[in-house]
């Protein structure tokens, strides 16, 4: 290099050097800004994303029947899972995994894809609630695919399956709208009761969630625990239900659609409440399959999701005659001794109203009219009253209100009145006297729930106690497993005139001894041992030209059979209402169901009792579970 050029080059290199240190200084200033000036801000951000408060879900309380048999239990459920960091990426691995699990490879890869995008914190669940076959399959598959894991999580188990589906309901994740409406009450992903007692008793069962402060990594996985407030378990509680009686009700209805309600006359406790067809709440814990939707939710033929005892509105038919009789006695339009002549039909306001017995019953007193279920007698009673008189009596004895049972979405009984007609039929608001005649035999616009009907017969049995049916019996003392009874809901006393009551009581006795229900040999046999009282009813579903026409009709147009009453006839202890849908006459279909209830409650239950709940768990029906709950 020419020495003359060196100074110039050095000067320029000197500029380069200054620029270099300038660059270093520039970077130092940037870092000073971030690390010194904005330190607290970034420290907060780093803390916020790494330190999380996570809820610890409280164990939900168990549900027991009145004798301590478990109806709802908590068990450990096993899920086949993949942790996020172990997700398979290669399509051939996904395909062979799908083949091993016997699932559609397309669906599996979609599942993995959407989990990769959205899933956080929890592993991907491939198969939930493994049963024995599922566990065996999982073990085989895990031998080949080591990245699969098995996760243990608490799970609700409904021990009777379909035994008390509608009563118990089921649990699920809280809905987003509900959570947004009450953010202080619910948290995201919380398990709450969705239906039945799980829903109405949610506050008692749910307990208090704990929480923990944890360190999480970018995937939301817990890395360290800084301390926690433990959860307080929910209360376990007893229902008034008797599992044995419930099973009898279930078996008695069998394949038929319908409802059975049995009330304890001491306090209004519901001893049995079965809706047929029932559903198995266990099935609703998993994601709903199309098969389930078809079978349950969208089944408009048998409507399995309707809780018939409180949501089924049935024309009460002849079971309503007792209210008409009571109204007539209290209005003094007849006396118990008044004899009314039945010729098989009678003309009111220019129209013939037929009796069930075409040849006519002849002259009948009230007791005989109840026993024989003579329609003409009650047409006559109704014709002597105004519809609002009947309504007022129904209102007085609680038939127009909801029973107040502690289950969600109870429907109201429908008793017509002039005011009701104005509202229900604004185009034709006038009440016609002829309509009152139909109401006299429990047809027309009258509609009652089986629970409402049972409550009315409980009122007859107790001479005027208007009970509030209830399922909640009391909390369980978690140390001794003993019942701490809760005080039953208050009842209203609306005493019946003893003279009136005596007539109705005798009429109901005669129904079983000599009247409409006595035609059935099984009913006769049971009544011989345990005399019981009740009233048959046959509710028309459709109108027919004649009997031959009726006989030809499809099953779902046939009459509903009803039976409501109480037992034993002397000093009654239980009241009941039975509805068998599309089964024909009340005496042949519904009364035997009631007889089976009576037989179990007063005979079999005492001579051949269920094994007592021993130790931790006795499931009275299913084979003993393979896994004991903790």
């Amino acid at each position, binding site marked *: 290099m020419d020495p003359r050029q060196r100074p110039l080059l050095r000067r320029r290199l000197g500029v380069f050097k200054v620029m270099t240190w300038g660059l270093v200084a520039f970077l130092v200033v940037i870092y000073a800004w971030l690390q010194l000036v904005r330190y607290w801000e970034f*420290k907060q951000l780093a803390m916020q994303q790494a330190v999380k408060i996570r809820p610890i879900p409280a164990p939900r309380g168990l549900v027991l029947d009145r004798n301590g048999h478990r109806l709802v239990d908590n068990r450990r459920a096993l899920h086949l899972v993949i942790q996020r960091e172990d997700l398979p990426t290669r399509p051939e691995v996904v395909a062979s995994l799908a083949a091993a699990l016997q699932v559609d490879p397309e669906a599996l890869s979609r599942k993995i894809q959407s989990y990769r995008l959205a899933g956080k914190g929890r592993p991907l669940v491939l198969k939930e609630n493994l049963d024995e076959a599922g566990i065996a399959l999982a073990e085989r598959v895990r031998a080949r695919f080591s990245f699969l894991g098995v996760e243990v999580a608490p799970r609700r188990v409904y021990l009777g399956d379909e035994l008390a589906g509608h009563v118990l309901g089921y649990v699920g994740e809280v809905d987003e709208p509900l959570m947004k409406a009450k953010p202080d009450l619910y948290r995201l992903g919380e398990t709450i009761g969705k239906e039945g007692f799980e829903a109405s008793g949610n506050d008692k069962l749910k307990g208090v969630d704990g929480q923990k402060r944890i360190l999480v990594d970018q995937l939301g996985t817990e890395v360290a625990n800084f301390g926690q407030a433990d959860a307080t378990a929910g209360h376990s509680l007893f229902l008034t239900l008797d599992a044995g009686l419930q099973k009898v009700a279930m078996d008695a209805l069998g394949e038929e659609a319908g409802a059975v309600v049995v009330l304890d006359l001491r306090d209004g406790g519901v001893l049995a409440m079965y809706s047929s067809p029932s559903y198995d709440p266990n099935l609703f814990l998993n994601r709903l399959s199309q098969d389930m939707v078809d079978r349950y939710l969208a089944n408009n033929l048998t409507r399995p999701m309707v809780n018939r005892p409180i949501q089924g509105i049935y024309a009460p038919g002849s079971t309503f005659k007792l209210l008409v009789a009571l109204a007539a006695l209290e209005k003094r339009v007849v006396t118990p001794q008044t004899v009314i002549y039945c010729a098989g039909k009678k003309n009111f306001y220019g129209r013939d109203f037929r009796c069930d017995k075409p040849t006519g019953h002849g002259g009948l007193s009230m007791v005989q009219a109840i026993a024989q279920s003579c329609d003409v007698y009650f047409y006559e009673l109704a014709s002597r009253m105004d519809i609002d008189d009947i309504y007022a009596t129904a209102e007085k004895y609680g038939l127009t209100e909801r029973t107040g049972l502690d289950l969600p979405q109870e429907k109201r009984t429908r008793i017509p009145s002039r005011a009701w007609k104005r509202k229900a039929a604004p185009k034709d608001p006038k009440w016609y006297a002829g309509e009152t005649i139909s109401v006299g035999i429990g047809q027309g616009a009258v509609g009652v729930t089986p629970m409402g009907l049972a409550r009315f017969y409980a009122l007859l049995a107790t001479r005027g106690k208007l009970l509030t049916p209830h399922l909640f019996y009391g909390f369980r003392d978690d140390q001794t497993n003993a019942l701490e009874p809760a005080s039953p809901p208050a009842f209203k006393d609306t005493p019946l005139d003893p003279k009136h009551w005596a007539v109705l009581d005798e009429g109901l006795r005669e129904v079983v001894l000599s009247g409409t229900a006595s035609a059935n040999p099984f009913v006769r046999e049971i009544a011989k041992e345990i005399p019981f009282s009740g009233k048959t009813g046959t509710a028309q579903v459709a109108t027919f030209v004649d009997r031959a026409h009726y006989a030809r009709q499809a099953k779902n147009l046939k009459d509903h059979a009803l039976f409501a009453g109480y037992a034993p006839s002397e000093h009654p202890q239980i009241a009941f209402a039975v509805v068998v849908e599309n089964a024909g006459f009340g005496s042949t279909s519904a009364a035997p169901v009631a007889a089976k209830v009576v037989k179990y409650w007063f005979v079999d239950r005492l001579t051949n009792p269920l094994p007592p709940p021993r130790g931790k768990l006795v499931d009275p029906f299913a084979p003993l579970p393979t896994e004991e709950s903790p």
Partner: protein
Amino acid sequence: MRERFRALDSRLLWVMLALIALGTLTLYSAGRNTPQAGIWLKQSLWNLLGMLLMLLLATTDPRRLFRYSFPSYLLGLVALAAVLVIGKKIGGATRWFVIAGQTFQPSELMKWVTLLYVSHRLGSKSPETVGKLELFGAVGLVVFPMLLIQRQPDLGMALSFLPILLLIPLMKGFRARWVVALLLLLGVGGFGAWKVALKPYQKQRVLNFLDPSADLQGKGYQVNQSRIAIGSGGLIGKGFTSGSQTQLNFLPVKTTDFAFSVWAEERGFLGVVLALGLFGLLLSRILDAAREAHTHAEAYFCAGAAGIFSLHLLVNVGMVAGALPNKGMVLPFFSAGGSSTLSFFLALGLIMGILHRSRVK
């Protein structure tokens, strides 16, 4: 062998070893509890291999290397063209050859070969006798491989060739009209690039840089997490292997592009000043080598090398702090990677050779 070691410049060596130490600690911490736990060991092997190469070059007469610069440059162009055809495609870009299971990025080495050849050409004559045509020719020699690299595409790498052009003001002095010309070129070129040359992901990077908070879950996420890591490090840092952003994996690509964030989080501002100070010393020493060089070509090479190192420093350290666009330029001694490590040591070896020759004469 002792002779060979004596050829190493001790000031440059100590600064370099210190930076290697910081980088290895950083990679150890970044790889902990991840599938990349052994990355610090792997990188140490690359460093060792690099230092052997450096030793070899330091004791080679630089003039012999300059003599081979033209065929090397041609070979480099062929390699860049070939990688477009037979290279391995990773993440949408074709930048790598696969040789015996290892990926190799020819553009890393090409940067230095280009510098070597351009220095050789411009340095073969006295600066005042170098004409405009030769200067334009030199610009062409730099721009041509840049265009090939942009085809891969790899804008960050292409831009890292630009410091070579600093040789022009070094030879001719700083002229106001060049600054105007450069600004004009940047303006027109920038607009043209935005309209024509930039890929959608590159546009996204520019947009993210202009407003990082607009896309916190996507590309902006990386820089945002990096800023949190750096800022929450504070004055003294969270301690070795104790950075929450690093250890809990909030910090992305922490063994390569964002390795410096790991250092900044765990060692704090003091650690940052230490690292940047060492880089400053390294660059100073390289510029010293330019001062002392025997020939113009040697001086130009050292100055250009300082420019390339400076650009890496500026873009990477600035980028992880969110002060510059997310360009994906590695930081020497910190970011893991074989091709870049070997290339950096090759350059350092040449510089040491130049320093050695200036001392012995």
